[in-house]
């Protein structure tokens, strides 16, 4: 059955690795249709790698339609620190001709192609010139042969999982237990078939390939690791942060965090409500926060627009609240399942009136956990709303990272309802600390929380000095926070030619770009910001030490040749040497896109990495 021998091709100049040689990392891409269960083997493979002491990072595309449509899963496994999902694949698995046609360019020269020989006819000559090895096998038929049954394609993904687990020398026992856990709910016979498929795939003869893709044992061996998506890490971070009430409305890519919180917050005595819309979601969260229960709401792009009136209330009424926005492509309904970083300005400024709030962004899945804790801490220390800006890439990416220690990092915030002599809700000279209803006030004067401008006791006031003083007070909370933030660290030398600045999910590619540029640029550094409003201190001094500052963002460069963070940084530092490297394709940056753009600067007006010919010039005609 094996077509390995006939189709195994040796690239010119490519020498097969001697047995026993070990790889440090490998990028695997699987491409097919969404009903092929690609996401689920991707997830299991990532988890298996995580259990095998690998660092893992993945890249997924979820088709907008639920079934049908192309789907890929890319997993970058390695034993060092994995920073990005990887640009090009070392190994490409394709189920169909269209997957082959579309994804072959992303397979690196000298890589390995695995294909379903019942559906794909590769161009062997083309492969040979690129030094690509290939192996075809009729995956569907082989699966049916082992599992039996009709022509149902179910199970072929598990067959493939077995084959890949063998290719990478993962532990069969660990793979079995993952598969068992995955199918347990569906009954014994399903588990049995899945295990049959897994073992048959495992037993498929890989011939010479069998020694080529063994990964090195990791440096972090023995460290207990978790493997999860950014959205899962976020849900656990929210719980660890002490949040015990949440409310939301489903929207991609935020939804799975919400589903998880709905199911798991009750384990902690908390509640998560699915509301009728986002206006209700944020209002319910503000209501619970007012009641003294740590609260959050979450959404993606369009929902953040609907939040804005209530955000303005939370600023005015000084309500501590965590607001999550998992960004996707916009404007409007935009690109629901793609990545973009274009909600930053909305997060920072979106709402009427002067309404300062805190905005933070995690750079990777692990940070979703810890930064959520910090975000809630800030919300309570300054009594204000904090917007937590994740993005689709972080949300759906699976990473393996050190298991957090809940007994050390879990935050507990409880409302103290002991009677007190009196309460002034809005003191001008200190941060507001609301008392929750249920707290007896011995002077018998109960406070009002309000969206009207008010005096220190919460009564409406149109006094000009009062409005000025209260407006300043609300703003000063941001100044105070900014003064308490650490100066961010530069990755690389403290001065030089180029500084690459970023935020959110681009951290890994930026760090790789910095590494790659080191060979030909004297002094290149990276700076990744987690605090976006207020910005951390020391930026002016850092920027002063570099000749050119590039701000890498997945949003439009606009009129000034830099994107949303770039513009904010120009405002903050008045530094004219800031320019943007922008991408608006709904896809993450590749390392070479950043590197190429820096090596051949094209002037500020053409800052997008690729500009469509149709819009290069625009006129009324």
């Amino acid at each position, binding site marked *: 059955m094996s077509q390995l021998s006939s189709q195994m091709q040796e690239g010119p100049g490519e020498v097969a690795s001697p047995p026993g040689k070990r790889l440090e990392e490998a990028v695997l891409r699987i491409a097919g249709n969404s009903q092929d269960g690609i996401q689920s083997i991707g997830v299991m493979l990532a988890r298996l790698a*995580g259990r095998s002491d690998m660092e893992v990072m993945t890249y997924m595309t979820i088709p907008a339609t639920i079934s049908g449509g192309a789907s890929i899963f890319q997993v970058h496994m390695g034993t060092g620190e994995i920073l990005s999902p990887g640009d090009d694949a070392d190994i490409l698995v394709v189920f169909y001709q269209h997957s082959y046609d579309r994804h072959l360019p992303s397979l690196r020269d000298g890589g390995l192609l695995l294909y379903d020989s019942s559906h794909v006819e590769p161009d062997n000559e083309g492969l040979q010139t690129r030094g690509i090895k290939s192996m075809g096998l009729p995956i569907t038929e082989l699966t049916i042969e082992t599992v039996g049954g009709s022509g149902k394609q179910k199970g072929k993904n598990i067959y493939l999982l077995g084959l890949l687990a063998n290719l990478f020398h993962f532990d069969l026992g660990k793979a079995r237990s993952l598969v068992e856990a995955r199918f347990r709910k569906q009954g014994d016979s399903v588990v049995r078939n899945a295990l049959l498929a897994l073992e048959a795939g495992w037993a498929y003869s890989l011939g010479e390939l069998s020694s080529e893709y063994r990964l090195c044992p990791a440096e972090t061996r023995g460290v207990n690791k978790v*493997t999860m998506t950014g959205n899962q890490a976020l849900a656990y971070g929210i719980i660890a942060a002490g949040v015990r009430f949440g409310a939301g409305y489903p929207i991609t890519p935020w939804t799975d965090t919400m589903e998880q919180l709905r199911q798991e917050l*009750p384990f902690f005595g908390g509640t998560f409500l699915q509301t009728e819309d986002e206006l209700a979601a944020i209002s319910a969260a503000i209501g619970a*926060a007012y009641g003294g229960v740590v609260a959050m709401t979450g959404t993606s792009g369009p929902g953040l627009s609907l939040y804005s009136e209530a955000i303005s209330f939370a600023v005015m009424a000084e309500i501590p609240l965590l607001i999550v926005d998992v960004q996707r492509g916009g404007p409007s309904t935009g690109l629901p399942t793609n990545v973009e970083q274009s909600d930053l300005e909305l997060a920072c400024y979106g709402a009427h009136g002067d309404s300062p709030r805190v905005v933070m962004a995690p750079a990777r899945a692990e940070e979703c956990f810890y*930064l959520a804790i910090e975000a809630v*801490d800030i919300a309570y220390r300054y009594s204000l709303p904090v917007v937590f800006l994740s993005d689709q890439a972080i949300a759906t990416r699976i990473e393996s990272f050190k298991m957090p220690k*809940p007994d050390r990092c879990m935050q507990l915030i409880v409302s103290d309802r002991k009677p007190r002599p009196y309460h002034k809700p809005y003191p001008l000279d200190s941060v507001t*600390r609301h008392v929750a209803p249920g707290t007896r006030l011995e002077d018998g004067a109960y406070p009002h*929380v309000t969206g*009207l401008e008010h005096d220190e006791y919460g009564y409406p006031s149109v006094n000009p000095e009062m409005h000025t003083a209260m407006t300043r007070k609300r703003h000063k909370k941001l100044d105070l926070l900014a003064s308490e933030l650490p100066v961010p660290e530069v990755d690389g030398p403290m001065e030089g030619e180029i500084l690459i600045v970023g935020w959110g999910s681009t951290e890994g590619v930026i760090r790789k770009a910095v590494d790659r540029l080191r060979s030909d640029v004297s002094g290149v550094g990276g700076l990744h910001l987690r605090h976006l409003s207020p910005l951390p201190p020391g930026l002016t001094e850092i920027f002063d030490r570099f000749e050119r500052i590039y701000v890498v963002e997945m949003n439009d460069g606009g009129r000034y040749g830099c994107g949303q963070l770039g513009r904010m940084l120009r405002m903050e530092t008045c530094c004219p040497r800031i320019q943007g490297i922008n991408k608006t394709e709904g896809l993450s940056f590749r390392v070479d896109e950043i590197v190429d753009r820096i090596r051949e600067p094209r002037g500020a007006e053409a800052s997008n990495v690729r500009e469509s010919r149709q819009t290069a010039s625009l006129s009324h005609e």
Partner: protein
Amino acid sequence: MSENLGKQRAYPMSNESNDSETTITAATEREVPEERRHRLTKSELRADRPTWCAGCGDYGVLAIYQKMLEKRNPPHEEIVTLSGIGCSSRFPYFVNTYGVHYLHGRVLPFATGLSVARPDLNIFVFVGDGDAYSIGGNHLEHCARKNVRMTVVVMDNEVYGLTKKQTSPTSPIGFKSKTDPWGSQIPPLNPIKKLIAAGATFVARSVASSPNHLMSMMEQGMDHNGFAVIECLSECVQFYPGAFDDTHPRRGGKFSEVPADHDIGDDAAAYRLAEADPPGYFGVFYREEKTTLNESEGERVRQSQRRFDGGRDSEVLERLMERLT
């Protein structure tokens, strides 16, 4: 990233004494038997002087609310008075209880969050017809459907008062407002029918000028375990004077109570009763005992917590995350 962010903290940190007590001490008068508890007085419930126009129907609602609290005497600190935006929604400033003046149309979801998070509180919501039936109409339906525990009084003047005379969803056909100077041509919505159709479990109708009747409706609303709505006609003397003269015997109108033989458990009968020509009937149209959202969410928490048999939060989190190792 530090993983040592863990800290225990009690908010609010009092400005003058800062002790590190972290447990919730719901020191209320609840444990004190009702007869021995301090009795709320009218003056204790008074706050800012109302800013409503002289003669506004809303004064009547405020007076009855204070009188009812005095009579029923719940622990003072457990009363929460909430409102949206409108003349009527200035309400919380005029009564000395915990109060929130929230957004136009959104106070019901605010109250939902508060009610579910704090089922121990007595939550009262006061809103206008525009707030409840127009901008907040969707929330009203969903609160009714979910049966969230709270008492809502809609102070319906059939006009937008605060913004000075625009057509409201309850303005009758022919009503001349600044947005319909030629007379409104859109049929008004019928709040009682809307509420019954949405599944509200307590629906009553009253008028601010009948204090005893309103008091009875509000007390029954307060006693109802669930979402109780009292649609209360309340005259805007400024922009729709005389709107409810037809309910007032002394002004030549007729105050008809819900007929004694009406079955308040029959939603179809209530629906038909609500179709009576103006000024219609007053009283409880519909009442039903149904599981509240507070109860179902509370039960979910109890069941979920049983699964980890009372483990500490950090242990539970660790066990959940261990599934992903």
